[in-house]
């Protein structure tokens, strides 16, 4: 049995990629293995851990719960697209570095994308709102305290309080 392939144009971090994938190919796998954007990590493959979160038209999505063929016509942002245009770390990335918001780094890309979307919606979160913002992502290393601090710091950096 030969699996039929579908031609799909994926627009990721502003760049269009033409790929041919089976209908069942997960977006997470297409990003990682077809496009070689391996910054998006897969932690559970059932949408619970949030490590694979990417932005689809600016909204956080679990890329393990989305098929690549359904991502045509969407603007996708992965962790590789979060740096500033000049190549320096983006606000959320910088905040994680300053606040020791990561240890092994495996869940981190999903937090970075989630927080990027969260701060776009709520640029000035309280600590409680910061906690809520990341409450759907699992981390096994940090205990979350420093991630919450990173959210608050990222909000400051976005406001230009450097």
């Amino acid at each position, binding site marked *: *049995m*030969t*699996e039929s392939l579908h031609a799909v144009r994926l627009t990721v971090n502003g760049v269009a990629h033409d790929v041919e994938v*089976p209908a*069942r*190919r997960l977006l997470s796998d297409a990003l*990682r*293995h077809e496009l*070689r*954007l*391996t*910054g*998006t*990590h*897969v*932690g*559970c*493959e*059932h949408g*619970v*851990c949030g*490590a694979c979160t990417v932005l689809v038209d600016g909204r956080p999505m679990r890329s393990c719960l989305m098929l690549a063929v359904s991502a045509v016509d969407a603007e996708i942002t*992965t*962790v*590789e697209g*979060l*740096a500033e245009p000049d190549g320096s*770390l983006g606000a959320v*990335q910088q905040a*994680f*570095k*300053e606040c*020791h918001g*990561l*240890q*092994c*780094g*495996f*869940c*981190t*890309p999903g937090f*970075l994308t989630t927080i990027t979307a969260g701060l776009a919606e709520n640029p000035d979160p309280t*600590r409680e709102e910061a*906690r*809520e913002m*990341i*409450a*759907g*992502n*699992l*981390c*096994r*290393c*940090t*205990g*979350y*305290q*420093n*991630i*919450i601090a990173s959210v608050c710091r990222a909000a400051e950096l976005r406001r230009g309080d450097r």
Partner: protein
Amino acid sequence: MTTKLMGEKVRRVEDARLLRGEGRYVDDLAPGALEVAVLRSPHAHARIKGIDVDPVLDVEGVVAVYTYDDLSGPMAEPLPLLIPHPALTHGRTQYALAKDEVNYAGEAVAMVVAESRYVAEDAVALIRVDYEVLPPVVGIDAARRGERLVHEDVPGNVAARLEQGSGDAEAAIAAAPHRLSLDLTVERSASTPMEGRGTVARWDPDTKRLLVWSSTQTSTGVRAAVATKLGLGLGQVDVITPDVGGGFGVKIMHPWPEELLVPMAAMALGRPVKFTEDRREHFISSAHERGQVQHVDVGFDEDGRLLGLSVEFWHDNGAYTPYGLIVPIITSTQLLGPYKPRAYKVVFESLYTNTVIVTPYRGAGRPQGVYAMERTMDAIAAYLGKDRTEVRSVNFIQPDEFPYDHGMTFQDGRPLIYDSGDYPASLEKLKALVGWDEFESFRQEARGEGRRVGIGLACYVEGTGVGPYEGAHINVETTGKVKVAIGLTTQGQGHQTAFAQIVADELGVPFEDVEVTSGDTRRMPYAVGTFASRAAVMSGSAVALAARQTRTKALRIAAEALEAAEDDLEIVDGQIRVKGAPGTGIALGTVAVLSNPLRYAFDEASKLATQFVVGDPTKPPVAEDDEPGLEGKDFYSPERSTFANGMHAVIVETDPETAEIKILKYAVVHDCGNLINPMIVEGQIHGGVAQGVGGALYERMAYDANGQLLNASFMDFLMPYATEVPESIDIDHLETPSPLNPLGLKGAGEAGVIPSAAVFASAIEDAEGIPVRAMPISPSELFELRRTHQHEADQHEEQS
């Protein structure tokens, strides 16, 4: 002027790469590699009567399929029993692919190699196995009853029985003015790193060498296992540990079947092969830990002083014992904590069940031991009507009693001798930090509002930095850049940063010029691994020693070049100069050129070196006792472990209606000797506490009577999110340096998780006034506990 970096909160050099999505974890490597999927037993206990792989061969994209019958030589033998012990009289290990029988649901039965994981999984679903299902042994009670056996030739399911002690505990208990007995249980949990296991292998037919990347906590261990099992010379195998998405113990277990099968397939097929474990596989085929049933008998005096302590416990080791008795031995020895019972006896049985194997998970048997001891301390305090801190205080080993010899043998086979600590000082700090003395007024206040609150504490001592050794190699390049190689692996602890801090200080070079590589057997072939809170102590010490050696050589060469005495020289910012005379010196990179008599002038440093003369022209260019290059290499091998310690306290609120358990305050006092990087240490504590909260309140492995793991997903196994952990953790450090190593270090990696079950049990019991004897405790279990307690109280009333 170079500022000292030891003890500073230096930001991590690892981060920029990881934050940009430029980390390299196993599954990110070798694009285009063949991928494997493993057929795992659906039964907890069964005989395999036949396997039909024929339907698989027609699947397009399938390259190979393996069952036990395809294994030969050492691969057809059982997997290694890594750590034998005389008491492990009935050790058993599994085969890389099951032979004739399976003993847990999840055991590897067959492996398909295909063009993609999707195709490999399709193919696995087509394999037909004829099983004769056998009744399984699930849970410690069933194992103890021994009516059914996991292994036919292991009577009573007892893998091992070990007894240790000092003094006549039973006589001491019998003679004691007061006696208590406690029956306790702790359920299973697991490391559950965000990245599961993974292995990639590439065979080079031209050089006849095998390159393996594995998500492991020991690359040297995997290397030796692969070479032995595949019949290769050790020199033909290189193992690299790339970025690892968390370990927490499960990845120190090795070799996993796939760590051998993947290289085997790569050699046979002549193409790179990759295994990436999925989440369900991780739950049902990677190791668990914690599950124990314990019985404590204790005799004590009016002050609560432990006169005799006798502990018996039953440890569920799962279906096999590849990691020996490490976990129960640690429970049995570390149970003693900061206390000195006059007489102690401990007996354990390590029991087989038809469940996933049990090997160390962060804490490695200590959480269970601390739970047993601290529950006992609380029970004594309740019995005597004393403050719980007072009962602990009278039993503390005092600061002037170090080194303190317990008269027992520790996990490393060495005497259990504590090196340093100040437990009374730690307790004072903890009481201040959590507000112990003010708690009663808070309780009254809360009670007035209809709220129920409780406070708990737990103390532990943790043997860290177990041997036998770790090494470090340092090479100063002609650019002045310092390349450091350590052999153990890293999985998020910030080793690249912490060890660079040590090198920068010891060698007098800018932090930015130091680059640390870990877990690459090509760079450091002798190493043990990252476990038992040993990396900072072991590799940190080795790095310091190697840096000192490098410094000595640099000063010797520079003294000759500068025509100065070695003692008059200093190294500042990578420049060697006469003390107090800036501008007179020679760059470390130039010294690196001078250290190598082969002087092709490749770079500026080489040209600069021509102005200096070193070496006696009448002697060989490399002296008899010297080597070319500005390098240092040394190993640190301690005579015994160093003992870190700590105390946690928590204030909880339990909902009178719903029995929901809320954390109001969490406090940690921690003594890991001198700190290299307090930011990293605090991060380790935060993470450990979160795992501890999971283990105390949420996580359990829900096996049914058939040995099926019912909650093998993140949907059903409740790992804490940000909403479940304390909002903040108050941390205070006490630094009692270890006298056993050059930097006075003690380990910190596991500390946060060790007292969790104990501290939550203590606080919930305090809030409820009902003895807590089983952990973890969920709201529904607390609710049940209340009902049972009320029912018992009512019956008692009726009878009287």
